[in-house]
């Protein structure tokens, strides 16, 4: 719609299912992908829980949207920054998260990881270097 390319950061600080913010944040990301902006996602505090493996919502009757994160690569949303300290405080490591990948067109469609574990300082720097921050 315009040739402006802005840096958009989606900040996810809340756990999934207890409240709807994680799901409705993901809905914005999916729609936003069509706008060809420079998109990053940040997961910190309880937001890191959104990416954990093995979510099974059958018994609470709520839609399991965790598989949708695996589709983000196809939408060219490939930069998911996860804060190391937030994982550690919650007793989690990278192994507890889903494996998310994207295919790099410029590198013979090689599969590359979308999740990048960064520390708190790098997260602060990432946040400072944006044009638009959307908080959920």
């Amino acid at each position, binding site marked *: 719609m315009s040739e402006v390319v802005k840096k958009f950061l989606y900040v996810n600080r809340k756990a999934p*299912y*207890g*409240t*709807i913010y994680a799901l409705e944040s993901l809905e914005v990301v999916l729609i936003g992908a069509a706008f060809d902006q420079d998109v990053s996602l940040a997961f910190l505090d309880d937001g890191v829980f959104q990416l954990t493996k093995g979510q099974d919502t059958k018994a*609470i*009757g*709520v*839609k399991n949207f965790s598989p949708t994160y695996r589709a983000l690569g196809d939408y060219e949303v490939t930069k998911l920054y996860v804060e190391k300290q937030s994982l550690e405080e919650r007793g989690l490591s990278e192994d507890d998260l889903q494996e998310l990948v994207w295919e790099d067109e410029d590198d013979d469609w090689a599969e590359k990881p979308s999740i990048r574990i960064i520390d708190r300082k790098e997260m602060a720097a990432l946040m400072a270097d944006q044009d638009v921050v959307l908080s959920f």
Partner: protein
Amino acid sequence: MKFGILISEGPYTHQAADSALHFTKAALEAGHEIERVFFYHDGVNVGTRLSVPPQDERNLQQEWSALAKEHELDLVICIAAAQRRGLLDENEAKRQGKDANNIADGFRISGLGQLIEMGILSDRLMTFGD
């Protein structure tokens, strides 16, 4: 045993209305009685018939309405909380000069006294909120 159920948050935004639904079903299955289900704060929004959640998601209003029909549950929406949030039945709409109402089948609007009464008449009052 008689349970009273208080729901304090709106559907989908918080899991409270889901948890309350599952608890209520489990209580009925175990042979308990449900004295009343009282909707307060944003909980009143569970009772709108105008919601249209995505096809692949649960419809909390319909599930509550169906459960109420099956088990003759008394689903009461607090009138003061409902007025603030725009949840009306036909009478209220008329009284307030509004041209539409949005309450769903199986719900009724009444006063906060019904919450206190539920506390008095129930053996246990369970709160689901945020």
